């Protein structure tokens, strides 16, 4: 019974049917399954398969986003259940993410934010054209351990370095790992400005984030 329910949840994510993910999650809660079991046995495997299919070229960005939406809605149902049991979902990490000052490109940044949230990160998305100070103060307030900086223009890429420098000046650089991305951003640029990592797409960004946080 429970195996079947968990498989349904997994399949609903893979099929990109958030309504089914929500229905399946409710059913599983009603059937008395432990929230952690639902997450680890139903949701996480579903998102893993979706990520694999994207990486292999079978799935496209809209598939990623719809599955992430199902995951997010299911997690919202499970949060009170976890709380009632005095359980805590081991957060994968707390991320402050945004597109740097002077740059209004949203798509790539939002995609990474969505995928991080779907993979268990607590995401603080500051939006676009974000001032340097806003990154710093949110990192401090949220106790973040990860920062994601997006830039789509060669003219705004420098803003990534400005944030990294400002984090250092505020004494927060040891607390956070910084990852950078955006069309003109390269591994070399990331190294040059003292970032901790660079990813070429949203799926790679999740893998990078998990790696950076695990490294501590």
């Amino acid at each position, binding site marked *: 019974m429970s195996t079947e329910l968990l498989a349904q949840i997994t399949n609903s994510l893979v099929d990109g049917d958030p309504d089914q993910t929500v229905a399946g999650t409710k059913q599983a809660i009603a059937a008395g399954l432990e929230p952690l079991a639902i997450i680890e046995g139903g949701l996480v495997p579903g998102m893993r398969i979706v990520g694999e299919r994207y990486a292999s*070229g079978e799935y*496209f*960005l*809209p598939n990623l986003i719809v599955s992430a939406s199902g995951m997010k809605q299911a997690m919202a149902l499970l949060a009170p259940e976890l709380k009632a049991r005095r359980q805590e979902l081991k957060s994968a990490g707390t991320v402050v993410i945004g597109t740097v000052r002077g740059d*209004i490109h949203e*798509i*790539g940044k939002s*995609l990474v934010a969505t995928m991080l949230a779907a993979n268990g990160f607590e995401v603080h998305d500051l939006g676009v054209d974000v001032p340097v100070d806003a990154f710093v103060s949110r990192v401090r307030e949220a106790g973040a351990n990860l920062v994601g900086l997006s830039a789509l223009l*060669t*003219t705004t890429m420098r803003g990534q370095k400005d944030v990294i420098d400002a984090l250092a000046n505020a004494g927060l650089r040891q607390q956070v790992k910084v990852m950078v991305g955006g*069309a*003109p951003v390269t591994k070399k640029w990331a190294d040059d400005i003292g970032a901790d990592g660079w990813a070429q*797409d*949203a799926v790679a960004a999740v893998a990078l984030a998990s790696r950076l946080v695990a490294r501590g």
Partner: protein
Amino acid sequence: MRPTLRMLSESLVGQIVAEGMALLRDPGVRVHNVEARRLLAEAGADVDEGRLVARIPERIVRQALETTARDFNLFTLDGQPAVHYGGDDVHFDPGSAALAILDPETNRQRVPVTADFIRLLKLVERLPQIDAQSTSMICGDVVPEIGDLYRLYLALNYIRKPIVTGAFRTDTWWVMKEMLAAVAGGEAALAARPIAVFDVCPSPPLLWSDLTCQNLIDCARAGIPAELVSMPLAGATAPVTLAAAVVQHTAECLSGIVIGQLAKPGAKIVWGGSPAAFDMREGTTPMGDVGTWMIDCAYAQVGKSLGLPTHAYLGMSDAKIIDAQCGMESAGGTLLGALAGVNMISGAGMMDFESCQSLEKLVIDAEMIGMAKRLLRGIEPRDEPIALGLFQKMGHRADYLAEPHTLKWFTKELYLPSPVIDRATTDGWLRKGATTAAERAADRVRSLVASYQQVPVPPELRRELRAIATRAAQSFGMSALPPLPDFDLV
């Protein structure tokens, strides 16, 4: 008969225009420019100063369509009409504002500098298939604040072809206008015989930023043509259905025409764009995609239905080197844009979406442009009767090569490519070094650039232009411009 491409049925065009007008009423257009909001409010639009949204009734749009210019000419720098924006006339210019140049030595991108752009200018002046210049590179050896005006400054020194350009700031637009007026012989002469058109880009969906809106207003008032570059990204910043993306384009361009006409009735405004069908795997903006081309051709048809001059970014490739993908994508867009009758097709030489200019690609693209122009001239009878008279003379003989009829017509009937296109026998190709198209293109770039001759610009005008550009550079903390040794300007 001239071959033409129609992407939309008449009824679909009508529905797209109607829905475009409806979008301007609800949800309206976001206008981040104070003056434009004031103009819109005074004209009777419902302007929400809190949300910076203007809801524009159809009456105002119809009025603007009444006063906007149906066509106009762009002139060469020495005052000859060279590009006609209007009707189904088709012209080509290189893609604009490349952040990178493909270095033919390394086959990798790098930041372009003054010498690269001068080489490109010389090449464009010499390429017969290219009708207008574009300020196609952003030079990395000047401060970024003058990146826009510095390109124009160089162009004004090296070429005579009309210019497609654009400003990156509101203050530098005035410097650019000052330089153009100096060349044209004053502001009135510049308005009467414009030598440049400015690209102004709304942000999808339905947003006019402060900068681009101000550029539009300033162009309208100065009598300088403005080219609306609306860029719905189907599936990301615009609906994924192509028709709906064209509706968004229609609304963005109509709002641009309204703002321009409110600033100055009669202003010359081009119905243009650079849309793309979002790539659902990489999250990029492919210019070599068939969906992109279809949106372009469809919106051009919409613009023509309103009687407006048109523009599109076509003939580009997303490839990173000059390879098969580069050739096929550039050819596809070039041909379709020509068949759609787009007045100005920008994009030649451009690759890696819209970010890298390649001189070698430009000369390859020029061959495709030459073929597209030949295609547009269509097939004509030439003789009456078409062939019967000839056959009475020739019977079954096959030696047309020696016939005066062939000599009379072959240059008009056939497109005669440059040596970039290889049509040798295999042995001939081997003898000539077994080259690739890119290698032959590099040879042609070298020979055309070497054959460039200075354009006759009076020395005092060169000095005046340099003084204007230098003042701008100094105001942004750069004490001197890079030298122009061709004219002893240091």
